[in-house]
């Protein structure tokens, strides 16, 4: 992680809750976070796929843009089409450097014509804020409200019914990638977004930091009778990987572009002007030299970050695994990694070097796991 090692690790407002629940705590990018609770990663993963998982994501960053030119400022920073957003809409996007490399992946929320919120990765908060201020700081008011904002993810097929017991908000009509500001959940002020990072239906609930503990307890209380569980970073990682959702720092970085990462669907080269557009246009015309491939293991072996990816016949090193794990719902081991574009075609055989043991893998298209009805 790119956090100075001499900085003291930070705690979210829910740290005491995790301790009380008996969580195993790790330092994740400078944050002391639960990696799993006593139930364990596999049980937490399953609870999210079958019922509800409750996740502390308070470490994530919230940067607000306010003022007449807020929308224009956000458009300058992100690759997706901001002009197409309406109030209450959320949109996945990336912010790029002029080089086309990714500063961060993020979600943009349009609160009002003159108010946008961008939620960014925890380990990138300072980097992103500096990047935003350096580029559009004079266009509108930018405030980093990360420390004042708690965020809890509430994910799974029973998330909507569990949450409905805590709020009068119109959840039934709240569609995916939309949000409702200024609501109440368990009597506490909340913004309810139908977003997530698990491949399931679900919500991310924002509340002022002073209500974090009460909100967490209320959400856990609503989830538990339905088989819901608190879920740590361990299962958060296996859930997002099964959904083939990229993780910044692993699958995305300052030196990979969104086109290489398979995120061309969030790059709108015919919409607004944004930082990195020229480089991405050039890359699109020149063709991609490498692509992020998703693969399923066909032989025994668990792919992990950093393992070499090789040509199945010649043994030539093609790249390395950026994310890899067991896929608990799939019963298969899965991973992702950058390879020369010709090797990213579905059906291509690759060899993953699992600590000296070669194991065959096959490139596949799309998410490894897709929820029914999605």
């Amino acid at each position, binding site marked *: 992680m790119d956090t100075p090692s001499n900085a003291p690790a930070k705690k979210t407002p829910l740290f005491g809750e995790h301790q009380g629940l008996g969580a*195993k705590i790790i330092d994740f990018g400078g944050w002391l976070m639960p*990696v*799993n609770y006593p139930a*364990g*990663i*596999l049980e937490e993963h399953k609870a999210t796929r079958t019922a509800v998982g409750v996740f502390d994501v308070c470490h994530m960053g919230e940067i607000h843009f306010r003022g007449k030119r807020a929308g224009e400022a956000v458009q300058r920073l992100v690759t997706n089409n901001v002009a197409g957003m309406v109030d209450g809409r959320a949109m996945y996007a990336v912010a790029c450097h002029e080089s086309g490399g990714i500063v961060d992946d993020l979600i943009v929320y349009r609160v009002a014509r003159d108010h946008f919120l961008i939620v960014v990765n925890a380990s990138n908060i300072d980097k992103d804020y500096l990047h935003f201020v350096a580029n559009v700081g004079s266009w509108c008011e930018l405030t980093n409200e990360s420390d004042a904002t708690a965020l809890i993810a509430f994910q799974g097929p029973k998330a909507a019914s569990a949450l409905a017991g805590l709020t009068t908000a119109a959840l039934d009509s709240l569609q995916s990638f939309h949000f409702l500001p200024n609501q109440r959940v368990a009597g506490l002020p909340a913004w309810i977004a139908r977003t997530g990072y698990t491949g399931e239906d679900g919500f991310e609930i924002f509340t002022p930091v002073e209500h974090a503990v009460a909100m967490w307890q209320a959400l856990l209380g609503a989830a538990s009778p339905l088989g819901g569980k608190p879920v740590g970073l*361990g299962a958060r*990682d*296996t859930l997002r990987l099964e959904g083939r959702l990229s993780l910044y720092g692993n699958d995305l970085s300052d030196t990979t572009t969104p086109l290489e990462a398979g995120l061309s669907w969030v790059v709108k080269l015919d919409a607004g002007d944004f930082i990195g557009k020229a480089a991405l246009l050039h890359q699109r015309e020149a063709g991609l030299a490498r692509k992020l491939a998703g693969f399923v293991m066909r032989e*025994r*072996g*668990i792919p*992990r970050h950093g393992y070499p990816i090789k040509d199945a016949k010649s043994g030539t090193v093609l790249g390395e695994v950026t994310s890899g*794990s*067991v896929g*608990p719902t799939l019963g298969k081991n899965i991973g992702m990694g950058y390879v020369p574009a010709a090797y990213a075609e579905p059906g291509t055989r690759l060899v993953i070097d699992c*600590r000296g*043991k070669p194991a065959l893998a096959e490139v596949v298209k799309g998410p490894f796991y897709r929820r029914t009805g999605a």
Partner: protein
Amino acid sequence: MSDTYPNDLLYTEDHEWARQEGNLVTVGISQFAVEQLGDVTQVDLPREGEVLKAHDAFGSVESVKAVSDLFAPVAGKVVKVNTTLRDSPEYVNEEPYDGGWMIQIEVANPDDLKKLMDSTVYETFLKENED
């Protein structure tokens, strides 16, 4: 604590346990190792007949989040391997001292066992190395 670290076993600093029966030593990993790893998802073990030196890596155990080498507590020949773990690695979590055993070694040098810790020393070792 005798349930967590049975007192009829010997332990290594790498958190393997060894159960001596005559010239045979059965090997697995301790409750502490199991708790550190979390859900075990893959166990790779040597073939029967393989000859190990003490401290040789004889295999690996993988959980959802990590992979760890397994080290031989004593030198000798592998005479039995728990092949059940290939398809049912969860035994390591559920019964680390029973169904989760890994290999059985025919001991080459009985003095190797004297270098291992008994349960009392092992528990002290764990306390001294907390975090």
